């Protein structure tokens, strides 16, 4: 039997017991791999490991309380992904007026997540500029960029996760890329001009 068929069969059967054994089903779906993906997404959106940890935990807690709403287990990833997107948005709203920069202590200057910006051998200027440009994007633009380029979701999948229309997603992605390109070009020109 193909692996996919086995997975589908297991998912259907998991659904059957979900009502009566939520803990088993929850642990089955919200496993280490799912949490790791969620945490990395939250790190990119929030730019802070502690915030990312809190947001991921918030999302898992919400998923547990809403687990009865998950009627189709094969849709778990999309369902949990949407909860996570909202958990990150809540965190962002809490610091709406904060401006996070690379000089901010909240944005760590050490650690593997900033390796691209810290290693001169990897072209520190360009990579640091890209990281800074990503961080400077508006939250809804950063959201679609991460969903598109980090999680490799399609436009329709991003629309489902974010609750926006596909056209809106395309528009946000267009403006986000234009913003990134513009920032990088500007940075290159400055570098060229200073050189």
């Amino acid at each position, binding site marked *: 039997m193909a692996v996919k068929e086995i997975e589908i069969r297991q998912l259907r059967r998991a659904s059957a017991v979900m009502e009566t054994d939520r803990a088993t089903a929850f642990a089955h779906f919200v496993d280490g791999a799912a949490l790791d993906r969620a945490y990395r997404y939250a790190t*990119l959106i929030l730019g802070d490991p502690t915030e990312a940890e809190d947001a991921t935990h918030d999302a898992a807690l919400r998923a547990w309380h809403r687990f009865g709403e998950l009627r189709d287990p094969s849709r778990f990833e999309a369902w949990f992904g949407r909860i996570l997107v909202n958990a990150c948005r809540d965190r962002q709203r809490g610091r709406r007026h904060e401006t996070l920069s690379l000089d901010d202590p909240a944005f760590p200057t050490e650690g593997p997540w900033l390796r691209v910006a810290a290693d001169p051998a990897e072209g520190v200027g360009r990579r640091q500029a890209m990281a800074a440009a990503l961080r400077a994007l508006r939250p809804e633009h950063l959201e679609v960029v991460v969903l598109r380029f980090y999680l490799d979701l399609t436009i329709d999948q991003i629309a489902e996760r974010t609750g926006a229309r596909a056209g809106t997603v395309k528009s946000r992605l267009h403006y986000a890329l234009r913003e990134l390109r513009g920032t990088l070009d500007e940075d290159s020109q400055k570098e060229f001009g200073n050189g």
Partner: protein
Amino acid sequence: MADERDLDAEIRATLEAMAARPAPDRLLDQVSAIPTAEPTSVPLRRSGPSRPRLGFGLATAAIAAIVIAGALYFRGGIQNGAAATTPPASASSIAAETASPTPALSTSLSPATPAPSVVAVAPSPSPTPSLTSSDVIPANFQPLSVTFVSADMGWVLGSAGCGADTCPVIVRTLDGGRTWTRIAAPDASLDYPGNLQAGSGISELRFADPLDGWAFGPGLWATHDGGLTWKQLTIPGLPGGAVAALEASAGGVQVVAYDGNTTFRIASSPVSSEAWLLSALKVPVGAGPVPEVQLVLQGQAGWVLENNRVVTGGARLVNGTWQAWQPPCLDVLGPATLAAANAQVVTAVCDVGQWATPQGEHLYRSTNGGQTFAETGPKLPVEGISAVAAPTTSTIVVAATGPSTNAVEVIASRDGGLTWTSVLIPGPVQVRYLGFTTATQGVLITSDPGSRTQLFMTRDGGHTWTPVQF
């Protein structure tokens, strides 16, 4: 267009690097504790923007406190090894049973491999309802059999006093053994491992996945809802029907049952249904008084080895069919204990000359799925093998009697059996079970002379073992 692709690639590379840090272990611990710490009737709390940056809020802090307290309690000896990302077959599939201690003659396996017949499993005429479980784990709970389907999810069958009797109790963990919850158990009596007299009692437990599990030995009970309900099975075509071994792997469950007369029979089924296929292959029990059978599965491959004082016969699962097999050590006048690291690398520890001139424990390895074996490394520095596990092709863990202490000792080799190190001396006990769920996470159950049992777990490939509390 090339610029577009360059920009995409640059964005992807930058995001990958910015998200390179994995989720911390404490987050995994906290989330796995949610089902037990958070009643589902509690309304969802919103993440308030005013919550302190480093805090989880009062409710989640309470959860964290519980988890951290538990973690600190266990941290005494646990080396916090990284959890494997892709857990292989259940721990049970790698384990071996205690070797038989009494002398006898050897016989060989019937060479014929007749075609299998399809039979159906008949539930017992009046399905027995499962016991109602309480969440409380009895204080006198004694672990008897353990099975894990992933690094996180596992079950333990144990005993606990119930009035003047002893009853089976099953507990389940969702966080790799840190916390346990009681679930329902079959309405069966506890039996002792290795009992080949037909009956409905149970002594062992295996799960294939979060839903499908079996309690057996010599009876056979199955659950297909994660242990909420259990029903007793009888397998038509297996006269006597004493289940001697059961393992699950690759979506299938394999049962070896004693026919009450002269042979062991093998039946298999998909894990989620009861459509059993009874192999017509018969494994003779041999002339000795204590037939003991081992069943080892790895993916689609499997091996049955029968000792009756000495190695007497075996069977091998090839392309979904059980075939006659000449197991290793048929001619060494002693029993063998089997383990498999994968479908190709099979390990046997043989007690050479036990019933003639004792020459100690020797390691034999196969790299072609058990077709041929060759002796490897020096004689093992122990005697009286109880169990063998091979979590990787280079790591072998053996539970046996130590050379001078006359107590059980667990030794491990990291180089395929060339050198050995003592890793645990649990004392004057017997080993009921040894197995690995992943390359690093394993379990061990011991039983002392007073029948008090103890479950140990390792998370570093057998270097350190920590007692598990329930």
